[in-house]
């Protein structure tokens, strides 16, 4: 019994799993002209290409699995991987190579940095070691990959920063950090994000990493403020803040009020150089102690918090007197099902991916469907919402659900 109380053992009877770190790596690197190599026996690659990558059928970006087998793993024979990557790279000539891995490389202590170095030496092509383990979520993988890419290919010095990294940018421009189809699909959300800032008079320096080229992203240090639009972008933004002091603002422009709050926060961060978020801090909600009879927004953290914040900015009558709370997967421990079920049972309304409809206690409650590629994959792709815009009708969807 003690054992049962100690931990939940991550059993999922009703829920799906969010996509893993390895898919996050591949998704982040997809448009940059590289070759992603997933060190794994098999399966992670087809999961990515089938469920997590809407650009796969029509594109020709490079992502392969190493096909690690038992004997190679037991013997720790890394020469197999080095030889295989070198052969493929010789044929395909990628601009760079990203090396990530799943659980078996992790438990046999595969030396990502060392092998990356040897492949680079053999091929002459830059290799980014991204030591994922297949146990964490995509947000971590995206963040690790983007950070590794920035470290290797983006130079603060060429973007006007001195050695002490004390440049004061002359113009307010932003980088959008953590943009991948896993959170924004391919239905125009990435483009809407850029448009939102530009319509507010704030040029977008980089959209990292959709719709921008390798060269455009190399200019990432020319931005003045990093806008973290998904928690996937938190790690690279934090790295840039640490190295250059560039402030970061966390938030998404969902609906008019939340967009206004985000633009305001960005301008403030530009002025005072202090990082901030665009929602009210609530330690109780952070512990997922959500009061009964309210609106539960399930999704990626920045999305869930931003949408909850947008809902809470509506007049109380428009939201049935309820308050919205965000709930998001734990990036380190996957998402535990029990607190989610409890929260769903107690909620007055649920906003989230349609696959959450299966949660016990959610039947018969108002449910706002917000399909999320990182959760339900391609199943609901055609119903993805264009949410990253001031025009997103927050009031309308909540009112309609209440009717």
């Amino acid at each position, binding site marked *: 019994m003690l054992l049962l109380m100690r*931990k939940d053992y991550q*059993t*999922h009877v009703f829920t799906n799993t969010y996509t*893993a770190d390895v898919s996050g790596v591949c998704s982040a690197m997809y448009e940059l002209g590289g070759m992603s190599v997933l060190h794994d026996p098999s399966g992670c690659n087809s999961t990515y290409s089938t469920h997590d990558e809407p650009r796969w*059928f029509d594109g*020709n970006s490079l992502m392969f699995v190493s096909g690690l087998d038992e004997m190679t793993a037991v013997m720790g024979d890394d020469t197999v991987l080095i030889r295989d990557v070198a052969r493929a790279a010789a044929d395909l000539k990628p601009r760079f190579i990203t090396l990530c891995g799943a659980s078996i490389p992790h438990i046999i202590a595969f030396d990502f940095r060392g092998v990356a170095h040897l492949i680079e030496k053999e091929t002459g092509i830059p290799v980014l070691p991204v030591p994922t*383990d*297949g*146990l964490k979520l995509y947000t971590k993988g995206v963040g690790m990959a983007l950070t590794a890419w920035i470290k290797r290919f983006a130079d603060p010095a060429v973007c006007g920063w001195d050695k002490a990294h004390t440049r004061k940018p002359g113009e307010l421009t932003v980088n959008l950090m953590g943009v991948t189809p896993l959170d924004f699909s391919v239905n125009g959300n990435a483009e809407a994000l850029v448009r939102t800032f530009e319509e507010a008079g704030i040029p977008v320096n980089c959209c990292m990493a959709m719709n921008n080229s390798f060269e455009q992203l190399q200019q990432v240090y020319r931005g003045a403020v990093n806008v973290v639009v998904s928690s996937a972008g938190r790690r690279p933004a934090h790295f840039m803040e640490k190295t250059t002091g560039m402030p970061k603002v966390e938030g998404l422009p969902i609906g008019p009020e939340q967009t206004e709050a985000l633009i305001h926060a960005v301008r403030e961060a530009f002025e005072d150089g202090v990082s901030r978020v665009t929602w009210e801090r609530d330690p109780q909600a952070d512990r997922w102690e959500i009061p009964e009879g309210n609106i539960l927004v399930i999704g990626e953290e920045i999305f869930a918090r931003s949408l909850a914040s947008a809902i809470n900015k509506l007049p109380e009558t428009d939201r049935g007197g309820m308050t919205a709370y965000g709930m998001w997967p734990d990036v380190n421990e996957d998402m535990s099902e029990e607190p989610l079920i409890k929260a769903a049972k107690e909620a007055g309304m649920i906003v989230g991916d349609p696959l959450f409809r299966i949660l016990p206690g959610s039947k018969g409650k108002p449910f706002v469907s917000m399909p999320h590629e990182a959760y339900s994959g391609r199943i609901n792709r055609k119903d993805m919402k264009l949410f990253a815009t001031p025009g997103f009708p927050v009031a309308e969807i909540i009112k309609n659900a209440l009717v």
Partner: protein
Amino acid sequence: MDNKEYQLIKDVDYEYDADIGLAYASPVRGVWNIVHMGTLMPQGHQIYVCPVSCLRGVVLTTAEMGAMDKMSTISIGEDNILEGDMEEQLFLGAERVINELPERPRMMMIFTSCIHHFMAVNYRRVYKLLQEKYPDIDFVDCYMDPIMRRTRPVVPVLWRQMHRSLKMREPEELRDDQVNYLGNCFPHEEFCDLTNVLAERGVRKIEINSCRTYDEFLEESRSKVNFVFHNTGVRAAKDLKVRLKQEWMQLRPGYTYDQYDEDLSAACRMCGVEPPAEEWSREQRRLTEAAVQETAELLGDTPVSIDYAAVDRPLELALFLLDHGFNVESVFVETFIESQEVFDALKAARPELKVYATAGWNLRRMERGHDGKVLCIGQKCAYFLDSDYFVNMVENDGLYGYSGTRRLMEMIREAYEEPKPMKELVQVKGLGCCCS
């Protein structure tokens, strides 16, 4: 041009194997995976115990089938590796699933993964404890461990494990009038000669894909004979021979008339019924030849391509079609499973035949397409040659023998005349499984 997408068969050795480097996963997803297979078990429930990177694919496979009620998951975290509590996790996780499910499953297939082997997890003890605590459920150890694929490929092992709950019967319980088909995703019905021949002789077949209840599936233990059509079913048959003393036989899923006659006669003798008469065979050959001829005339010089996911013996089919005047241009295969005799004959018949490895890294950058119309047998060649004129089938589609060959010809004629929305169809995971 230094072509890296395909080889000509005249330059290929019989020992060809494409599993030798980085692998590419094309968007073609019609072949069934172990999740699809597991959902065939009536009143069964699957639990996958893996890291999230492995779980994602299996859960969404199930969700796309609309069968989320047939599977649950337990995700392994860093803490489980460090604390070494994977046995506890397995036991308590399975208990929670049993307690939460609205209906008690009759069989529970628990899939452990690559990481369990490397962590030396004692899962057999866990199953024993579960079996003791929940005697009304049959617990079966299953494996999603692609790291073992060279010695213990997952699909044949799963077919074997799915039949592990069958127990030996008393001699008086055995039935002469029924047989089992093992290892088939698709029902073998009217386009399978064995089914027709046995049915005419009063022998019925049981195959898991058609069972509606678990008790119906357990009836398999009363059969005396098992038949296997695909190589992937052989392990199940061998296991049942050892445990249940059931005889077994593999029918060769090729395109050689003499083999059909030999195999059907041998199968009938195993079942203790009269083999087909020579007259029957002559009539079948006549009908089949007419169907093949009609198809060849329709296609004329149209190039034909065949992939290994559509039919079990793509080289043998290529040879059969070439012998009948078809213009077979390419095959998409990962390895050769036909005899060297077939391989050599094909090499002699069409030395310029193109051989593509579908998982090869160079195929990712292949310019998909074809000059003019190409008739594709299978989804993979349809994708790579960008053709809407294709036979949408995997794993032989339940075809066997003369009637199977005639049905294949009919499907080729239909495919030649009616284009299909290739992009939409080939991305559906598990042909015939999707709920939408």
